[in-house]
């Protein structure tokens, strides 16, 4: 499989204020601080992280809401950020996003028709777009008479289906799913997830699936990356990731998941339990940013930031426990 989208050394820093007597020293939040990954064609790449990890900032940078501070994102080998030049309409068509909160991503004052029509108007203007809109609604399993409804008349799951229909209106090849089901109940989540999987197969879509829910990731992603304070800690194939989690943070997260069966309980790492909290991204700890919460902390950890190391083929970890100078495994 070829890489469809690659992020290399991606950084996004936000200046949120000034400190010091003369207010000369900017206070920066390093929301994303050197992230590299590749999403392959036709796969679902899972980006997992807790709040403040910077996972959504990665999404918003890809979609073009932010300019990266450093690093680059390439789509089909073409850089998405070429100076101040505006992104071409062809690229905008190809990359779409489904936001987390359908309550906010659908304008309450516009009908379903108007909402789904907008991308068509911009990219494929037609005299009568109604048949196409109805076809899009059918794709997401909504009845045609929904065209005249306003978002507040729809349930949470239905709203998200409209948002998916809007994202698919331009026939994209790459769709970012930013926590598409975290605002929904499980029974509705299941439906949306299965719909997304079906659509992926039907239209050969590639997904960047962003979530905080590792159990969900286990069931949808082909590869998983985990983020902590703006950096990726671990990347692996999904099956490998859940079978052999290396990074202490991954283990901590996995051990924290509330599960519903004994079989799942077996899979949870036992030796690590969650402690501490994510520090404010304004004051990132020195060295490896996870070290204050890490049960396997060494002296080196607070001084030096570890590099990404490929421990097994396709399984990379950013932790001193696995650095070559520590003798790897």
């Amino acid at each position, binding site marked *: 499989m070829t890489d469809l989208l690659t992020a290399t050394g991606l950084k996004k820093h936000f200046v949120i204020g000034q400190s010091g007597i003369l207010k000369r020293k900017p206070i920066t939040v390093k929301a994303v601080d050197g992230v590299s990954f590749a999403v392959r064609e036709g796969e679902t790449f899972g980006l997992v992280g807790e709040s403040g990890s910077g996972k959504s900032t990665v999404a918003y940078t890809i979609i073009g809401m932010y300019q990266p501070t450093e690093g680059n994102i390439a789509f089909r080998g073409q850089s998405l950020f070429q100076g101040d030049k505006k992104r071409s309409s062809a690229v905008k068509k190809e990359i779409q996003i489904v936001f987390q909160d359908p309550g906010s991503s659908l304008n309450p004052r516009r009908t379903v028709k108007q909402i789904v029509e907008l991308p068509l108007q911009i990219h494929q203007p037609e005299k009568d777009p109604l048949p196409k809109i109805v076809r899009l609604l059918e794709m997401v399993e909504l009845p045609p008479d929904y065209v005249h409804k306003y978002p507040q008349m729809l349930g949470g799951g239905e709203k998200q289906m409209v948002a998916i229909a809007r994202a698919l209106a331009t026939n994209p090849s790459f769709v970012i799913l930013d926590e598409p089901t975290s605002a929904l*109940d*499980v029974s509705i989540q299941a439906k949306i997830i299965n719909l997304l999987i079906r659509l992926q197969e039907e239209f050969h879509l590639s997904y960047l699936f962003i979530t905080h829910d*590792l159990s969900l990731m286990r069931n949808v992603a082909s590869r998983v990356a985990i983020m902590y304070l703006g950096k990726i800690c671990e990347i692996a194939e999904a099956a490998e990731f859940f079978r052999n989690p290396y990074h202490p943070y991954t283990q901590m997260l996995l051990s924290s998941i509330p599960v519903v069966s004994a079989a799942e309980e077996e899979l949870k790492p036992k030796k690590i339990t969650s402690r501490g909290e994510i520090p404010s991204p304004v004051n990132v700890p020195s060295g490896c940013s996870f070290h204050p919460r890490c049960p396997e902390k060494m002296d080196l950890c607070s001084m030096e930031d570890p590099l990404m190391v490929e421990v097994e083929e396709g399984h990379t970890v950013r932790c001193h426990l696995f650095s070559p100078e520590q003798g790897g495994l």
Partner: protein
Amino acid sequence: MSVGPLLDIKDLYVHFHVFGGTLKVLDGVNFTVYSGEKVGLVGETGCGKTTTMKAVLRVLPMPPARIPGGEIYFKGRDILKMGAEELGRVRGEGISMVFQDPTAALNPVFTIGQQLGAVVRYSLAGGKRISRKEIHQRAVVALKEVALPDAERLLKNYPFQLSGGMRQRVCIAMAVAGSRELIVADEPGTSLDVSIQDQILRLLRRLVEEKNTSVILITHTLGVVREIADRVYVMYAGKMVEVATTEELFSRPLHPYTLGLMKAVPKLTGGGIADGIPGRIPDYLDPPGGCRFHPRCDQAMGVCSQEKPWFYRVSDDHEVACFLYREGGKEK
């Protein structure tokens, strides 16, 4: 202590009067908590779990809410018939609540010390006057119980100076301060990250076990109740549909709704997720007759739309409100 249940909700109905008619939200809720028990209440958004607990604490806005029927016994006394003074004592000393959103539950313009102090004064001291110094000492103890470091300094802080996890801990400290008999925890830690939620749940479990307090844990996440509860109620559209001990429920869910829910939960073992439950929660203005779940149920029978199912006992620690289990066994 008396042998009867600590909290006993009997056939509780709650209606809301709104434009277009009456929302029949609670439709005969039966719910029991014994002393020292940890009870889970699981249900999806809008199933009435929070409404039930608001009725227990008598904090439903009336109007638009009305309680056309039912009794809520706390230690043998009907909360719905209590006078203001007795109700105040129940709220102050008997039952306390931990809310889902710790940011909204704490008043932003008072320090932690002031808020915790007020709780200490009203609940712990049981109405007696106690000195400032003692209030302070007891507040420090309360914060230490929830594993918050540097309690002295924390008491001078305002809520915004604390992280979400710390705020949630403060809320728990306020709830367990004093010897409350029942804590109602409404989605504790759900608004926080899993690693923090896990800490909060472990803390809550340790505290209630130490103090032998009863807990009602309200949540929409099946996994969370499994971590804490001894017994679980599953609620759908204003009615309990299944109750069993935690082990029994998770190894042998019976109600079609519980089954659907269990299947829809993404598992760490992988293998994809089932398609969930078709349709959505009914319109409370005009809820379906008979069993409220029948329009979404794949095993619905003729009787389901006609009559309301009673709880059928399938074993000593397992009851299901579903006609499939009438006569103690499955109807073929």
